[in-house]
């Protein structure tokens, strides 16, 4: 086991493992966000947000694991990118990459960087204010003017067309990242068998439906907001 993360395959395996974890988190985030467009004026969304925001298991166990997973995936991604660039120091004068691979598969670092930029924006929008309210100001009530604040905060954020545009652009990059990443993670973990074609189809559906779903949720809130 020693030195597993120093080997090329060990690193690939770790990338895949963290990717699976992040894809599972994404699905959970999507399901909760989807409740924000339920026709109950955010009641379900508020309940779920309050649970996720105040449950000790989520806050003190799952949240640190998630942050570690995100940081690990990005750091390992950069480490691999640097190593891969060193493996081909002299570039071809003419290279026809499109002849044998998809744009998504060749540009995971760029779609990944776009997602990283989005996460910074998303943290500024939602996560840092949450941390400030709960851990610095010590307000764990989840209330504002006697009502749950989560749905209201969400609506406020999606008032700005520039922010909605940035979110939609980021979700497009997320879709591209997932279109290659989903099946790639299975391959890295050694799963290439009779189920591979089915998994690839499922992966494509996941990679398109989840980001498009996030886009639609953002658009619904934008157009439902009084401008």
């Amino acid at each position, binding site marked *: 086991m020693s030195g597993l993360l120093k080997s090329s395959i060990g690193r690939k395996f770790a990338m895949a493992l963290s990717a699976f974890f992040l894809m599972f988190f994404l699905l959970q985030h999507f399901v909760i966000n989807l409740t924000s467009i339920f026709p109950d004026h955010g009641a379900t969304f508020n309940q779920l947000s309050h649970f996720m925001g105040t449950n000790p298991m989520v806050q003190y166990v799952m949240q640190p694991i998630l942050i570690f997973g995100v940081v690990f995936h990005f750091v390992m991604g950069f480490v691999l990118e640097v190593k891969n660039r060193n*493996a*081909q120091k002299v570039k*071809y*004068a003419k*290279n026809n*990459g499109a002849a044998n691979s998809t744009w998504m598969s060749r540009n995971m670092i760029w779609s990944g960087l776009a997602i990283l930029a989005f996460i910074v924006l998303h943290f500024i929008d939602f996560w840092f204010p949450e941390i400030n309210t709960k851990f610095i100001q010590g307000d764990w009530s989840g209330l504002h003017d006697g009502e749950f604040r989560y749905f209201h905060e969400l609506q406020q954020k999606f008032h700005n067309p520039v922010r909605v545009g940035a979110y939609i652009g980021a979700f497009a990059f997320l879709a591209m990242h997932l279109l290659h990443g989903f099946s790639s993670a299975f391959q890295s973990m050694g799963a290439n068998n009779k189920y591979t074609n089915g998994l690839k189809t499922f992966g494509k559906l996941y990679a398109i439906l989840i980001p498009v779903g996030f886009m639609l949720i953002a658009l619904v809130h934008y157009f439902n907001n009084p401008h």
Partner: protein
Amino acid sequence: MNLTLKIWRQKDANDKGQMVDYKVTDISEHMSFLEMMDVLNEQLVNSGDEPVAFDHDCREGICGMCSMYINGEAHGPDRGVTTCQLHMRMFNDGDTITIEPFRATAFPVIKDLVVDRTSFERIQQAGGFISVNTSGNTQDANAIPIAKEAADKAMDAATCIGCGACVATCKNSSAMLFVGAKVSQYALLPQGQVEATDRVLNMVKQMDEEGFGNCTNTGACEIECPKGISLENIARMNSEFMKASLKG
């Protein structure tokens, strides 16, 4: 057909190297790419210039010696062939063809289009073999029952000719298709089981030490491989490696 060739010229391993333009005329569409290179070299020798150095041996598509990165693809635009089996009918009269050596830190250029692929030999020496008792009581391989599917897949993996097109075409210069094929051909057979753990650990260790990159599953190697080696072999190597790491 008349062609313009843009060819990488490099005197030796220490030379900086550069692309040089050449013209060749009256090339038959039935020629192989290497025969076209022979015509160019004859022309260069007749005019007192240094011929272009390139690797070749069997010229039958089975030795894996000829390389070349032609118009942005390993072994050129055709599929399932090495450069010696690439025919000039794949090109048009008046075309400009860019010809470069395989590029990878682990495949340093020796001269012009010739690269040093002995890193593959060192990976093979690290574990790409089985130890067989040859003292006279060796068991007949045909007496060992092997499932048809396993035998077929092992044979498919064993068709790898070690040409290095997978490394050349990979944006990360990863050798995982080659190593995956070499690991798989033994991992699938009973004869390979005895040394299975050490084999995969040692071959992957050597592969990493040689400076090959990490596979990002673009699948380009599978497309460009002249022998159609499947990505399934990389997945098998990955699972063999993880199993061996947990054991070791």
